[in-house]
């Protein structure tokens, strides 16, 4: 028998619960093998599937490299971490949870900046006044660069931010941000507003297959079995 299918699922938090519920609804019960604290599991009644519980931020990398055959993660993380996503992975199904919008947000007091074009327009005067480009705090370096380039905004500088990104403009470590938001409440609480055309991506959790993984007969069969249960 060839190698089994490796299914990467989030190892903790709300995303793990929702993933388990999603599979359970289709009659696929995820359960851990060995210790309850371990990171290995299986799907009850399905052969040739090995479940890997990993941190959701690492699932994209596992799909990209082909270490996992299938996985569940946010589209935002795939688009950010896999530059050639169209070739490396296949989006099989949006799952309806883990919804978040990746947006460009500026201080509400920037009354003159409503659109990306406005943002571009103030770039040079900002630099003249402050001796540097304005800074965009984000963990989405690639999504930001791609979106800004598409919108013709070139004069800025990214500062990488791995947490509490919404606080950076008020703290003075960045002028604006690119981050995820669900209701916009956190942005508003930090004195920020989303640009009118500042929606970069409407993201949600997706079931994704890796094109980089080696798909032997066992893995192929397992994939067909899972997909048949999910979409009868």
């Amino acid at each position, binding site marked *: 028998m060839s190698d089994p299918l490796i299914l990467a699922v989030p190892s903790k938090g709300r995303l793990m619960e929702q993933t388990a519920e999603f599979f359970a609804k289709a009659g696929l019960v995820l359960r851990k093998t060995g210790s309850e604290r371990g990171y290995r599991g299986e799907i009850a009644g399905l052969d040739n599937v090995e479940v890997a519980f990993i941190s959701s931020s690492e699932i994209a990398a596992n799909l990209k490299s082909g270490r996992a055959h299938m996985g569940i993660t946010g589209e935002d993380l795939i688009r950010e971490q896999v530059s050639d996503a169209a070739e490396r992975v296949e989006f099989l199904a949006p799952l309806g949870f883990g919804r978040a919008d990746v947006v460009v947000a500026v*201080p509400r*007091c920037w*009354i003159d900046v409503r659109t990306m074009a406005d943002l571009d*327009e103030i770039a040079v005067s900002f630099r003249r006044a402050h001796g540097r480009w304005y800074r965009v705090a984000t963990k989405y370096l690639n999504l930001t*660069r791609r979106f800004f380039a598409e919108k013709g905004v070139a004069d800025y500088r990214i500062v990488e931010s791995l947490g509490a990104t919404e606080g950076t403009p008020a703290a003075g470590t960045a*002028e604006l941000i690119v981050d995820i938001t669900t209701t916009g409440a956190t942005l508003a609480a930090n*004195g920020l507003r989303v640009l009118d055309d500042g929606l970069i991506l409407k993201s949600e959790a997706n079931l994704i297959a890796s094109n980089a993984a080696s798909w032997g007969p066992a893995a192929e069969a397992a994939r067909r079995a899972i997909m048949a249960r999910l979409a009868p």
Partner: protein
Amino acid sequence: MAAETARQFEALEAQARKIMFVFLNAGYEAVAPAIIQPAGVFLDAIGEELRARTYVFTDPDGHELCLRPDLTVPTCRLHLERNSGGKLPAKYCYNGAAFRFQAQSADKAHPREFRQAGIEAFGGSDRERAEAETMALVVEALKAAGLRSMKLRLGDLGLFRAILKAADMPPRWRQRLADQFWHHDEFHAELKRLATDPASTSRRIPKALAGALDPGKPEEAEQRLAEYLEREGIELIGVRGASEIAASLLARLADARSAPLAPAIVAAIERYVAVRAPARIAAERVKEIVREAGIDIGEALAAFERRLELLDKAGVEVETAEFSAEFGRALEYYTGFVFEVVAPGLGRLSPVAGGGRYDRLMKSVGAPDDVPAVGAAIHTERLLAAVTGEIL
């Protein structure tokens, strides 16, 4: 192909000796600026596009550093360090590695580690002479390295600035068009907006605020904005203060009251940016365009023609050099004359050398004022491939 084999390494070294011989003979001092550069200074000077291709890392002390993506900025920093203010004239040459991330799809003409051989001249007072000398010296070095045939491309941001200055329009429109010149689509969109509907951006200002602001009374604007923010419960956060935001709003309201850009001026600007012709013919065409638009850019044209004469005298084949008005090279730090050398077989996207004037770069790396500066660099791996006939 960053000198992966001993033979390539030796070939590159031998070629570098020929190039550096030319530079040193012309009185340029050989320098070796640091490979590892502080990321902040460097990245503020070059913009995010090149930053995305720069290897940036944090050292164990938490300092953000980078591998230099070119040698011009490091040489500027070296010059600034040697004489504070960077005002004294100096001429430097170098041959060293530069690093740029390349997508996996990149071809061999775009290695992530490559060696640049180049020259930088600071503080020269005769502008056209310094520019012609830089280009002529690079062409001489390319020939010394064995490049038999080359195609030259020229640009001159000074001509464009002169047209903007001579054309009748509010100063802030000049500034905006000059700022947007680098971004082809945005530039044309802005030109169209000013010609048809300069009021468009003012319509996005909330009515209550627009009514309170008076472009005739700029001294009151900051106060009016502060009152508006207070009423709306909007907190002022960040370094961009009320005076800056108010000035930007006032400019928009002033736009709304300005007459659209005259059709003759729009036509002249559009015809100018479309000019692409052998250099001398281009000069004639530009003369015709400005004459028909009734604007005078005599000084900038004289500088352009004088530079061509100086290049001609220095042995550069200007007759076949192509002038392109939109040619400004991808790096935004150039401020005037720009040039590029393309070798047969390598194509326009992989020039073997390029350079130009960058009067504002010294200030952006820390000098108190702008310093006149001209420089150019040779992409030595591409040159070697072009000379040996190896197809990259």
